[in-house]
């Protein structure tokens, strides 16, 4: 226990977490500090490209082992099914309408790439290796949850629109294409490719992540300020209970598949994290009646900081304890 706490403590005083805290505080204090939209988008492109590329290189180096396909399939199934769990929890814990609950559920079945990146960075800092293809699992988990949410609404007789072109749009979403594309470029060019561009995608990575998290903190803080009274205590409880529950499922799945400790932690983080970039945009198209303030507050305002600060070290400690690693 004290080990977990010291781990969490060490995690909390990293530049990454403190940058997020700075953004959060600045926004809550109504500072006019902002990061231009183009710069924020540029950093997110950089992070997706770098993480995808490094994942691909790792696969090219260690080869494709048999758990790769299992992991991808598991990711797919998890992304399809976690929303059902989330939906159930939401109906039990909150008074949200079917549509709002389904929309929130979509976010929790999908993933937050930044949380994934932060977890990778914690693993790297502790010299714990992980399967390179976990980044492909992350990509696979982005979209299916949205379809589950639409199905949940349809089942309840709600007016979810399975718009023509929506599935296509989900699969060809910019972040997925970039992540998967960079993964393949990394897998094809391998160590040689990495050597070519590591001064760009490896060395400054953590620093860029700091500024990106500063921005995330600013957005989360602004969102929290806007959303006073929008979410109930029960909803906040959900936003902490759900990642914990999902992480346990991720733990079980990861062990079943036979992932390394690092891989298990990343699988837990993928399950536990909630999308706040791709899914919100999809929801505006597919479930416009759902209230954005609710799902953004929960996923970006509560679950994201929870995972970033306490979740990741906790998942790591649990994974290490359980696997004896």
């Amino acid at each position, binding site marked *: 226990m004290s080990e977990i706490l010291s781990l969490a403590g060490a995690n909390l005083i990293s530049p990454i977490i403190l940058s997020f805290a700075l953004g959060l505080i600045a926004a809550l204090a109504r500072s006019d500090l902002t990061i231009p939209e183009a710069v*924020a988008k540029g950093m*997110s492109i950089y992070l997706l490209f770098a993480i995808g590329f490094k994942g691909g290189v790792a696969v090219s180096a260690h080869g494709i082992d048999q758990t790769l396909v299992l992991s991808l399939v598991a990711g797919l199934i998890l992304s399809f099914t976690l929303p059902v769990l989330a939906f159930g929890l939401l109906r039990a814990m909150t008074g949200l309408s079917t549509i709002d609950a389904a929309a929130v559920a979509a976010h929790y079945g999908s993933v937050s790439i930044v949380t994934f990146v932060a977890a990778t960075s914690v693993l790297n800092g502790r010299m714990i290796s992980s399967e390179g293809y976990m980044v492909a699992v992350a990509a696979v988990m982005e979209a299916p949850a949205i379809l589950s949410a639409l199905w949940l609404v349809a089942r309840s007789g709600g007016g979810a629109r399975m718009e023509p072109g929506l599935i296509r749009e989900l699969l060809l979403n910019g972040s997925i294409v970039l992540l998967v594309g960079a993964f393949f470029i990394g897998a094809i060019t391998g160590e040689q490719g990495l050597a070519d561009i590591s001064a760009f995608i490896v060395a400054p990575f953590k620093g860029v992540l700091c500024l990106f998290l500063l921005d995330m903190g600013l957005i989360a803080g602004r969102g929290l300020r806007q959303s006073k009274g929008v979410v109930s205590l029960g909803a906040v409880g959900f936003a902490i209970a759900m990642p914990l529950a999902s992480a346990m499922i991720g733990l079980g799945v990861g062990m079943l598949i036979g992932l390394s400790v690092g891989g298990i932690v990343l699988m837990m983080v993928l399950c536990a994290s909630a999308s706040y970039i*791709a899914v919100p945009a999809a929801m505006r*198209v597919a479930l416009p009646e759902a209230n954005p303030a609710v799902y953004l507050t929960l996923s970006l305002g509560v679950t994201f900081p929870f995972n970033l600060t306490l979740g990741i070290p906790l998942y790591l400690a649990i994974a290490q304890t359980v696997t004896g690693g």
Partner: protein
Amino acid sequence: MQTHIAKRVEIVIEAPLERRLTDALTEAGVTGYSVLPVLGGSGRSGQWTRDGQVGRAGMVNVVCLIKPERLDGLLDAIFAVVKKHIGVVSVTDAQVLRAERF
């Protein structure tokens, strides 16, 4: 300089719906449109800003100049898209050069 009567339709709509709206405009037979960025704003659904956003968040302003006789059909097409969504539509009387373009 010879000018011609036209209508200027401006639609502030959520960015994720931009393509759906412009597709609807094209189907309704408009000959052109322009999309202008919006930095931020406020409305019934609260205040927002584009600052620091990474996803397709916020609103855009789609401007469309059309012949007056097309207005009604166009508004129907627009309304079908914005109906359930966040957004405002305004129409002003305008005059344009080169009527053959509209």
